[in-house]
């Protein structure tokens, strides 16, 4: 035989005529002309051409008696999927459901600041810490979520102190992240965060009119208080300790540039343009805040173009989801983002400890339980990791968590870069596998991959340098030359 093919996948991008994208089983890719693609598929490629050699380099074809370069394939696959052998690194503590905001898109059903019975108790917190330290992950991350974590700050302090002590005793490394609006954070509380090196993650949805429309608080001054909180937190804890993410609602859609500009004006070097979630309040508010995936993608494309221009003009700011996807496309390295993995990382690399002592595979799994479907409850904080891992919840995740085997996904050209999200599909479609053509998860990710691959195909050097700077976490000016385009 002339040559053999590996199980490659292919697809055509809507914005790119007469080119076919081909991806290898471990995500190496090449664009081919329609003509060359037909030759490839019909085993008619000339083996002496550079194109053929490029395809062989990317493990799409092979011609050796030994087959493809299996050592390389194995190293890449193991590197990308190594997380399946790892214990949970991310431990989310839902300290309280109390909150003073009534955000329309909120994923939680918030309780009033004075309500009782919605805070994590000492016994549950201690048991949860047992689970954290049962994990053998190299670096443990404890993330505090709510509600507004500031309402449960004494509990947070005790958990941080206890975790730090246990880490020091056992020589482990623990990071702390606190999700907070910052409004309720006093200088003393911030000083504690500084001393314990707690990273602060806040919500900033854009300029005043967008932010306040998305995130109403009683005084209708959420934007001002958030900006004030960011400044104070930076002054006390340090500039780099404060991060923010933007949730994109219908209100946000007309303002991609303004949202980006708000971030650069406030001195952020990273922005996350997070789509609205179909959980919790958001489902009820879908009419008011929701949008078609196509509208989000249009927004995202405009924001990305603006971000590239801003970076070329000398400001350093990345879009963190693009950086994540590019790392998955352009490198053999694993990414730690638990919501986009295959096999799905929910319950395996992340655990969510609810205020009431329930353990869930993910934050979304917990919200689903709030809505009456507790199939993603793994068990209680008082059960061992092994027992939690053997739960029915994990069986659902494992059965529907391998994107490479899911219907439609298995043939998708983007599947090497994508993930499976059984929890999302239960929430939106009532089934862990779900129906791809109507899946928002699928539409959104396919669209995002389209956008990024259009940039890669166009090969515009300046845009590439910016995207590369996000992936490599270097400034554009450090990238003297973009290098080979592959």
């Amino acid at each position: 035989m002339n040559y053999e093919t590996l199980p490659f996948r292919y697809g055509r991008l809507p914005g790119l005529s007469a080119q076919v994208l081909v991806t290898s089983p471990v995500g190496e890719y090449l664009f081919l002309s329609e003509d060359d693609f037909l030759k490839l598929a019909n085993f008619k490629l000339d083996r002496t051409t550079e194109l053929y050699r490029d395809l062989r380099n990317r493990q799409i074809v092979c011609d050796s008696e030994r087959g493809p370069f299996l050592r390389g394939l194995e190293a890449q696959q193991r590197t990308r999927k190594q997380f399946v052998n790892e214990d949970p690194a991310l431990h989310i503590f839902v300290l309280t459901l109390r909150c003073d905001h009534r955000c329309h898109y909120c994923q939680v059903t918030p309780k009033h600041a004075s309500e009782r019975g919605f805070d994590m108790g000492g016994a549950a917190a201690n048991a949860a810490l047992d689970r954290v330290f049962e994990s053998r992950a190299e670096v443990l991350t404890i993330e505090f979520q709510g509600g507004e974590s500031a309402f449960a700050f004494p509990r947070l302090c005790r958990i941080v102190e206890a975790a730090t002590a246990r880490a020091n005793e056992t020589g482990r490394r623990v990071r702390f992240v606190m999700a907070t609006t910052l409004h309720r954070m006093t200088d003393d509380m911030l000083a504690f965060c500084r001393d314990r090196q707690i990273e602060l993650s806040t919500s900033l949805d854009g300029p005043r009119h967008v932010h306040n429309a998305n995130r109403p608080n009683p005084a209708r001054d959420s934007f001002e208080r958030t900006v004030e909180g960011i400044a104070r937190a930076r002054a006390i804890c340090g500039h780099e300790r404060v991060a923010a993410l933007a949730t994109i609602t219908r209100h946000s859609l007309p303002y991609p540039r303004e949202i980006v500009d708000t971030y650069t004006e406030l001195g952020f070097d990273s922005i996350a343009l997070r789509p609205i979630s179909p959980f919790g309040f958001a489902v009820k508010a879908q009419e008011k805040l929701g949008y078609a995936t196509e509208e989000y993608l249009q927004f995202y494309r405009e924001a990305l173009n603006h971000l590239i221009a801003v970076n070329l003009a000398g400001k350093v700011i990345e879009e963190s989801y693009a950086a994540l996807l590019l790392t998955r496309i352009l490198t053999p390295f694993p990414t730690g983002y638990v919501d986009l993995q295959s096999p799905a990382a929910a319950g395996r690399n992340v655990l969510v400890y609810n205020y009431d002592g329930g353990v869930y595979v993910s934050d979304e799994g917990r919200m689903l339980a709030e809505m009456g479907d507790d199939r993603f409850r793994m068990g209680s904080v008082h059960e061992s990791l092994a027992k939690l891992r053997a739960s029915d919840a994990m069986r659902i995740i494992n059965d529907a968590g391998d994107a490479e085997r899911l219907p439609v996904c298995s043939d998708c050209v983007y599947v090497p870069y994508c993930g499976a999200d059984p929890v999302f599909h239960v929430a939106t479609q009532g089934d862990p596998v779900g129906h791809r053509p109507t899946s928002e998860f699928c539409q959104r990710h396919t669209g995002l991959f389209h956008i990024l691959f259009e940039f890669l195909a166009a090969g515009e050097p300046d845009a590439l340098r910016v995207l590369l700077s996000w992936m490599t976490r270097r400034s554009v000016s450090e990238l003297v030359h973009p290098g080979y385009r592959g």
Partner: protein
Amino acid sequence: MKWRKRLLQVLRWSVMTVGGVSTAALGFSSAAEQDTGVGALRDSDHDRVLLPNTLNATADDRYAQHRSHSSHSSHRSHRSSGSRGGIRRTVPAPVPQPQESPQPGSPAPSAPSTVAPQSPRGRPQPTPQDLSMMVVRVQAALMRRGFYVGDIDGILGPVTRAGLKAFQKSEGLAQTGRMDIDTLTRLGISIP
């Protein structure tokens, strides 16, 4: 095609690890094939090479040393120097074992052809250094045959002796744990 099955194992490794798929679903039908499938993968876990993440490695100068030493190649004689006077033996060398030295005692004329610098290395008695090198060879030979997994350190310690005994047993030799001629021969080591 043999490699296709192996490729499938490589690509399906993560799912098999997770336990989300039975080996039957991978097309392994017989029990024997299941063995070569999952079993082989478990074995190769020891062989796994992971690719370290290089992104945003700070521009360090780890290789400054190598850079200054980048283009060496052999230069056995490039700085050889002739000696007008030549090398002269003037008296018998006061070093051990002077058996090889020619014409002891006769002062040599200063012609280069006459001279023999004394070899400082003794021949008959193995020095500790020679012994240690022999142990290195034995340890390597044992390791290659699966009888030794320790460090190759040139020390004939209990682990190496145990390896020797195990090897001797498998060869039907007396289990002395010593590096005797028979054992060395079976290990493919020639005695200098």
